[in-house]
């Protein structure tokens, strides 16, 4: 077999270099290294950090929270919308977390505008439904990109027009701003209504799909706390209150599923659906026991809202994908920093 001439050897080496170079470039493109403008999960999470930087060992948002355990008691009515096991009549174990929509785990409870709940329901077939909901009736903006821009704008304290410019470009934030200004504060996590905000698709046993949002509607009547009074409350008053309240008995929320009609803005969580949509009460969430987060079962859970049982899937709403990507980054960061978490020293549960 004749060996190739030196000239064709050079040609061959060039071919090899081009093949390897193109493969490397394609890989770099896929990884986003050639697209500095791409909104990566890491950039989104970094933008959540408070001015002093992220607090190591903690969730990057909704950093302050307290664990609870309880049950979800399905009444069977949800089976008309979804074949998910969790809607079949029965009682299923829950691990949850009451939390504040803040990046600082040391924030005073009275300072947080947004309160939230993380819930994980497990069914006997081993499937899990995780959700992370907040008490706002709709989200601040329409897209994950807009949310990132909101975080950047609100971080620019030295640019007086940053927020005004943002609001001009994203007028949907007006409704959220109005809610934030006017919505009353309650005195308890137990008195909050928590909303999925994002839409999801329920698939029923006949193969029909229903695009839905859901809420946890409190059975406890709301007791409103004035702004002045709120500022005087102890730093951890919500955590103390819910601990005492659960010591005297379980607290309950009705899970209400709202079904979209054709044309409803299913892809935009900043838009409420019109009144009068069909709702189905599918069961009751009962919180029975509070456990401080360092010792609690919720600390190790990423309440990724895309962990869904068969019978529920994501919709055309772009947020669950972004939330899943960002929550994973938050989880990866905080677990890598677990030594910084309070009580993580010798003898503490790992």
């Amino acid at each position, binding site marked *: 077999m004749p060996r*190739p001439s030196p000239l064709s050897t050079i040609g*061959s080496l060039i071919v090899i270099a081009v093949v390897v170079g193109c493969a490397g470039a394609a890989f770099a493109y896929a990884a986003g290294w050639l697209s500095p403008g791409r*909104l990566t999960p890491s950039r989104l999470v970094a933008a959540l950090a408070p001015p002093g930087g992220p607090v190591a060992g903690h969730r990057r948002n909704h950093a302050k929270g307290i664990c609870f355990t309880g049950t979800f008691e399905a009444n069977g009515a949800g089976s008309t919308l979804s074949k998910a096991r969790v809607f079949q009549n029965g009682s299923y174990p829950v691990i949850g977390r009451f939390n504040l929509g803040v990046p600082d785990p040391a924030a005073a409870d009275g300072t947080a505008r947004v309160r939230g709940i993380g819930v994980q329901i497990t069914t006997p077939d081993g499937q*899990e439904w995780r959700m992370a909901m907040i008490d706002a009736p709709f989200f601040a903006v329409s897209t994950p990109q807009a949310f990132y821009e909101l975080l950047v704008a609100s971080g620019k304290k030295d640019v007086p027009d940053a927020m005004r410019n943002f609001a001009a470009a994203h007028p949907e934030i007006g409704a959220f701003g109005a809610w934030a200004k006017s919505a009353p504060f309650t005195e308890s996590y137990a008195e909050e209504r928590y909303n999925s905000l994002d839409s999801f698709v329920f698939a029923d046993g006949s193969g029909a799909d229903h695009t839905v949002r859901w809420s946890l509607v409190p059975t406890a009547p709301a007791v409103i706390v004035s702004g002045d009074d709120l500022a005087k409350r102890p730093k951890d008053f919500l955590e103390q209150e819910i601990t005492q309240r659960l010591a005297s008995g379980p607290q309950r929320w009705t899970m209400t599923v709202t079904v979209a009609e054709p044309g409803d803005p299913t892809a935009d969580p900043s838009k409420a659906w019109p009144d009068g949509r069909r709702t189905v009460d599918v069961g009751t969430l009962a919180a029975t026991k509070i456990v401080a987060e360092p010792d609690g079962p919720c600390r190790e859970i990423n309440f990724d809202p895309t962990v869904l049982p068969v019978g529920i*899937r994501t919709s055309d709403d772009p947020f669950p*994908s972004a939330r899943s990507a960002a929550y994973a980054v938050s989880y990866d960061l905080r*677990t890598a920093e*677990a030594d910084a978490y309070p009580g993580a020293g010798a003898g503490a549960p790992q």
Partner: protein
Amino acid sequence: MNGVDRHFTVAQRVLHWVMAVCILAMLFIGVGMVSTVTTSHLALVSIHKPLGIAILILAVLRIAERLRAGAPALPADLPAPMKRAAELSHYALYALMIAMPLLGWGMLSAAAYPVALFPGVFLPPILAQSDSVHTLLWNLHRALAFVFFAIILLHVAAALFHALVRRDGVFQAMTAGSTTDAPRVRAAAE
């Protein structure tokens, strides 16, 4: 070399090319899915997990077939350092084919995520939740992905070097074409 078939077995060649497509897709999906918040993220993750398990299964079959059938000898005139590099890179590639899916499965387990291959089809956790174990496995999974891709680039460069410059039949051992000194006629005649 006369009378010696310098091809890998048909099973080895099919496995090689199917896995080449799978593994390259896997690496691109992996770096892509962690770099975007769009709905592609979820779509890519939902491919990444079952494809990873498929690669694990194929890798087991492939190593079994390699142990059974061996490999054609490298050309006698191949310089010793190149022989050594070929052997080492092949060991590394086999090891990564097995290790990467297991690391991914393990890190999801250690993070208490359900390991869903398809809707309703779950793998059992292979580790208990642990912050430190999750971090270790996650870092390994990420770092070894880049190592894997780098070795594949070297592998491709070496294969093309054999095919275009040395023209010594090493590349053809993994293709359907004839090798330089063991014409396909012989294999076909059997």
